[in-house]
């Protein structure tokens, strides 16, 4: 009877990679579809991407069991491995078993696709990130769907992977999840020497800390007067006359928030503007209308403009931004209690929650529900 020996199988960088990847994916998952935390989503996304790139390199130069060549199994080997799970007992692998190996290759591929589609959506829909300016709103549209589908694919695979690990742990009577923390396994017979690679691991660890700190430090230094705005929108055309005439009773809503036909209609109704009289003379009116037309939602200068314009039927000319489907959807989760707060009071009081309401950019994350 050969006594099993406790041996290091997973080097430190591989373990760090593994758990940081889990963390990044979980954070990105928790913040998807939530504009207020898009910054967290993108920071985790970039981290995820960088980790995968590191793993590609590590798969070539890393220690024995981390190398791709070590777990480069054929589909036939995967099948016979799976078969053996239901048979007389499993063939024992010190490193990754064939099924796990394939899960890893597929995960890395999907992960790289997830990162690229993410960058494309960020560049197109938000005009932010590495690809900002190269992709239009419309072009990025299909990639959004793709991005979501890939993410679901990864989640499914993760579930399969974790189940596999649990099954293997039971069969081998060894806690394999723990092994991914400790790095060691009980090995019978010969196994390859695996150095810890502490230096490289500390470099990864330190860069993660610095990157996290740099990304999040703006949260620490922000105050009520200078709220944190991770995404800056484009600087939109401003007009003093507009801000003066339309900014006294409420926020001077930027023209990009309604289509041109709505503005035109609003001005023909000027004596009865939500029961107020705008009292604009001919000359003022025509300057305001010109400015509104030149910067209306159709011009697609911001994400909000683009989405508002898509959301209004061509035969409609709504007078209220707050009556538009897109606006209603985006604000559907805000409770009545919040709308009735003294600091909010009206749905049209955009500035109560959006820090960049005056600039008209309505960027993701530039918002806070008042407490």
């Amino acid at each position, binding site marked *: 009877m050969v006594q099993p020996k406790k041996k290091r199988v997973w080097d430190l960088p591989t373990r760090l990679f593994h758990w940081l990847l889990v963390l990044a994916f979980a954070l990105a998952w928790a913040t998807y579809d939530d504009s207020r935390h898009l910054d967290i989503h993108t920071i985790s996304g970039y981290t995820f991407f960088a980790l995968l790139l590191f793993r590609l390199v590590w798969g070539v130069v890393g220690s024995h069991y981390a190398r791709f060549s070590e777990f480069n199994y054929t589909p036939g080997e995967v099948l016979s491995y799976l078969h053996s799970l239901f048979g007389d007992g499993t063939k024992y692998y010190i490193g990754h078993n064939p099924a796990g190996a394939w899960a890893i290759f597929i995960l890395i591929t999907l992960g790289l696709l997830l990162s690229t589609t993410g960058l494309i959506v960020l560049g197109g829909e938000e005009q932010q990130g590495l690809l900002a300016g190269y992709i239009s709103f419309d072009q990025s549209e299909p990639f959004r769907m793709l991005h979501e589908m890939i993410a679901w694919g990864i989640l499914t695979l993760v579930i399969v992977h974790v189940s596999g690990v649990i099954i293997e742990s039971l069969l081998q009577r060894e806690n394999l999840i723990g092994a991914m923390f400790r790095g060691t396994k009980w090995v019978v017979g010969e196994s390859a020497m695996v150095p810890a690679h502490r230096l490289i691991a500390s470099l990864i660890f330190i860069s993660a800390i610095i990157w996290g700190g740099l990304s999040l430090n703006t949260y620490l230094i922000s105050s009520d007067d200078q709220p944190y705005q991770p995404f800056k929108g484009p600087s939109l055309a401003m007009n003093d006359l507009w801000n003066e005439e339309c900014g006294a*009773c*409420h*926020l001077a809503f930027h023209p990009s928030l309604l289509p041109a036909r709505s503005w035109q209609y609003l001005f023909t109704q000027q004596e009865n503007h*939500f029961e*107020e*009289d705008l*009292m604009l003379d001919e000359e003022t009116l025509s300057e305001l209308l010109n400015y509104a037309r030149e910067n209306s939602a159709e011009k697609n200068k911001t994400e909000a403009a683009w989405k508002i314009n898509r959301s209004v039927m061509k035969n409609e000319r709504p007078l209220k931004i707050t009556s538009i489907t897109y606006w209603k959807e985006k604000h559907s989760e805000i409770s009545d209690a919040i709308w009735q707060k*003294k*600091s*909010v*009071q*009206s749905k*049209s*009081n955009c*500035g*109560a929650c959006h820090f960049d309401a005056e600039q008209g950019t309505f960027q993701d994350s530039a918002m806070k529900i008042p407490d």
Partner: protein
Amino acid sequence: MKKLVLMLSTVVLSLAINMQAQAGNVETLQSEYQAAGAGNFSASNGEKMWVKNNLDKKSGKQRNCQTCHGKVLTQSGKHARTGKVIEPLARSVNSERLTDIKFMKKWLKRNCKWTIGRECSAQEKGDFLEYLKGQ
């Protein structure tokens, strides 16, 4: 040094002229109202009207000038319908107040209509200004 003195005195002078002109605008508007038939203006009448409640039949709610401008004129108010902050009306804290004739006319017309339900007379408008300019 000479330059600095010159610059400073220009600034002071222009400020003084500016303030003179600003202070003058309310008076100019008030004399316009007098020309339209108003008598002497009374700050206490202005104040009484400022806080007097008017029932709005449609909403069933009471309205007065404080509804938007707030109870304390040296502090900012809040637009009753939109929630937008309105800067303080008192000139002691907001030197830009009551400096533009067109602006005052427009808002007096609009706010009287909304608050009282009708336009104000020349006398009433002058009284409001008399009250406000002392704040």
